[in-house]
């Protein structure tokens, strides 16, 4: 069983969840240069590592918009949201969790088909074909 301990960065889940806080554009102190835009699939997402955070970033090509949110599913606390499918519900951009298809607004993090806690949302900007995510710290 030695290999199991390789995944040693084990932190209590509640603690993990607390690390993710919605960041407003006006509160951004750090613009983190994540990756070139072509690292993200068109109308899909990928995951960015920032310090000990996992951030899901979506390239909503049809709207020409970018979104970022926590990668952590608030339902099952697994790092999966970036692998979810995006789309819209009545015009609100959303992502569906690949585990049980819970959907979350990418505008404000709200759970659109249930009453789970909202997910944390982060501002995104594009400069010189690079994706930047805004953090308060």
């Amino acid at each position, binding site marked *: 069983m030695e290999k*199991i301990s390789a995944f040693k960065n084990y932190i209590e889940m509640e603690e993990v969840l607390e690390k993710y806080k919605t960041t407003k554009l006006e509160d951004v102190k750090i613009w983190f240069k994540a990756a070139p835009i072509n690292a993200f699939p068109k109308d899909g997402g990928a*995951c960015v590592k920032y310090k000990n955070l996992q951030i899901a970033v979506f390239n909503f090509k049809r709207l020409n918009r970018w979104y970022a949110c926590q990668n952590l599913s608030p339902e099952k606390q697994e790092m999966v949201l970036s692998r979810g499918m995006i789309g819209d519900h009545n015009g609100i951009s959303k992502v569906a969790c690949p585990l049980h298809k819970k*959907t979350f607004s990418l505008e404000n993090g709200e759970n659109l088909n249930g009453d789970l806690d909202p997910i944390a949302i982060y501002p995104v900007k594009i400069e010189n074909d690079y994706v930047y995510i805004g953090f308060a710290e």
Partner: protein
Amino acid sequence: MKNIIVVGNGMVGYKFCEKFVAKEESKHFKVTVFGEEPRPAYDRVHLSEFFENQDAKALEMAPAEWYAENNVDLIVGERVSDIDRKNKTITTAKDREFSYDYLVLATGSSAFVPPIKGVEKEGVFVYRTIEDLEGMLAYAAKLKEKNPNAKAAVLGGGLLGLEAGKAVMDMGLEPHIVEFAPKLMPRQLDSRSSQVLQLKLESIGLNIHLSKATNQILGDTCITGMEFGEDDVLDVDMLVVSAGIRPRDELAKSCGLDIGVRGGIVVDNKMNTSDENIYAIGEIALYNQMIYGLVAPGYDMADIAVEQIIGNTEILMPADIDMSTKLKLIGVDVASFGEPFMPAAKGHSIIFENKTQHLYKRINVSLDGKSLLGGILVGDASDYSMLHQIFLNGMKIPEDPSQLILPASDGGAAFGDVMDLPDEAQICSCESVTKGQICGAIESGEATDIAGVVSCTKAGTGCGGCKPMIADLTNATLKSLGIEVKEGVCEHFDLSRQDLYKIIQVKEYATFDEVLDNHGNGGHGCELCKPLVASLMASINADTANKEYAIQDSNDRFLANIQRNGTYSVVPRIPGGEITPDKLIALGEIAKKYDLYTKVTGGVRIDLFGATLNQLPLIWKELIAYGFESGHAYGKSLRTVKTCVGSTWCRYGMDESISFGIELENRYRGIRAPHKIKGGVSGCIRECAEARGKDFGLIAVEGGWNLYVGGNGGATPRHAELLAEQIDNETVIKYLDRYLMFYMRTAKPLQRTAAWQDRLEGGMDFLKEVIIDDKLGIVEDLENEMETLVNKFECEWTQAVNDPEMMKRFNHFVNSEEDDDNLVFVPMRDQKMPEQWKK
């Protein structure tokens, strides 16, 4: 409070209870039912289905709780042994006494066993109860163990005998039908139609012996043969006697009720026996000097008895009783209605016969040419419902009556629209439901679809023969109300899956955006329509899931099944479950190297769990090097074709189930469908591969394969149904190509074949017409489309690992080589598992 005692809990005895408790007046009565059989009433008409699933519960008319809920005392396993008419009491075989105000005798009939010498020998059965069938199954299994070529005969070539013949054939015994008369179904068919039927039955493997009087049953303790004349002997190992029925009138006899010369309790048109407090209904009642061996008249009798007892004494049994029948023998259409054989003095007959196609149609028309008097259909009974209705309702017939049976030359089937029927037309004779009631249920809004009509009118819940008409009426009524059933797949498309399929095929769209922009509602898609369009484009263009990966369902996007902690499982294809030791070792080595949890799956292959996204391509690279390919366990596509070892190893095997299973798995691998598809191939009827629990299943029988379709396990298990029998490998592939493609074209999103087939209007008959008879004229297209998909197959994992661009998809982070640092595994039985979710 008055007491009603019902003796006999068969189909009719039950129907009496059901109709009685539905009456307001029933609260003044207490109903007690006695049944001699060990279980509550079941659907004897569909008894043969017991062979398919051995599920007695599925045949129940109502569960035991129903009786309690409706204040009916049900006492099963207790025979009524005596009636004391003076004191109005009955006594049971357990010596219990009950008193009655009204007694209803519904004791039915038993199978008639002619007094042939030796008929008591082991291996001689009748075909009437579930216990009879259980006995036959056990005996047949024993026989087959000793001798795979065992033979069984059925004594009697009537309606029931032929059904029994089919049953023994399905049990894997060589079937023989022995009939005393010079033709089959002597009561329903004329000589010519009988010959056509005989040819057809012989072509599917039934051996038919006509004009045979059996002198004795040979054998010591067990039957070994039947002797007809001195040198005329048929060797058989089992015999099913189906020589008619005998009313169970022993009780009535012993208490002095009037009995007919050949048995049966004499009743009048109130269903009253010679004792005014005693009624008799069903297959025991002798009405108009006849025992009616069908359920529909029995149900009518139950109805009359109910009305009489609650005081509606003016409601009487009609003098004319419709004896029309449609034989429900699988694979052969036979029907007769009205007066099948008509003396020339009464009218003219129009006969259409085509022996090469095993087709015979006859209608009898009145001398003035205005009304239909009866007819016979063999080989194609699709016109039966309509002809039967025209006959029953005395509807006008076309000037040239031959139009009724001849194939329409200009395609203008102007005659016989269901909506032309009068409102009083009885559509369902089992439940006495009229056209007016069916259409009314929809017009009033009570029902909005076929299932709704069935549940609120009960039409179609008896023999089921009226279902196609119910479907036609429902659809026509909905249409006349201007109701269009909207089947949009989600908020982004008002189109159904079937519509989208056609559009994408015709317009040759290649991307999701094209479809959405041209046919969507203006939104941006979602988790419902994106994977659907992806799957359709894959079904049509043979695209792999690598094509436009962002619209693929998450599992397809990463070509693996996501597990509870966000890791993935890896399932290489092991066609037919056959694997060499070397490949098995390779799997073990790879699993060990990446520390994967290993398990044999329910579909006989090996699943490696706990791979991280980053590990997936590395693992697959190694697997591919060892000659493995994607198992598509993540896709809505073919999973496995489970096989038994068949004639390659098994001593019972009748064909090479492994070889054929591998061929089929390799043929359909990778093809995207509305839902997952599983197959099974068994080498004989012992069915070790559980093929009938699969979307398609094959069982080797004498002379080929039986092909079953539409089965599944899952939340609502269902056995697959027989599509074709005794067909060779090539025909299996042909039919399967057509079947799967037809399913892929027309099913709803995420609809398994079972649910699709259940909701297919026209049911199995329609499916056979489409797949086998090419009623829609599409089989060539279906085959070509499938052939294209088969030829274009490419392993998507091989594609992915050979393309550095594609490989990028499998990085957990876009900006780091690291793996997910959130994963936690805990040890379990020498392997690992994900840590449990917190509640």
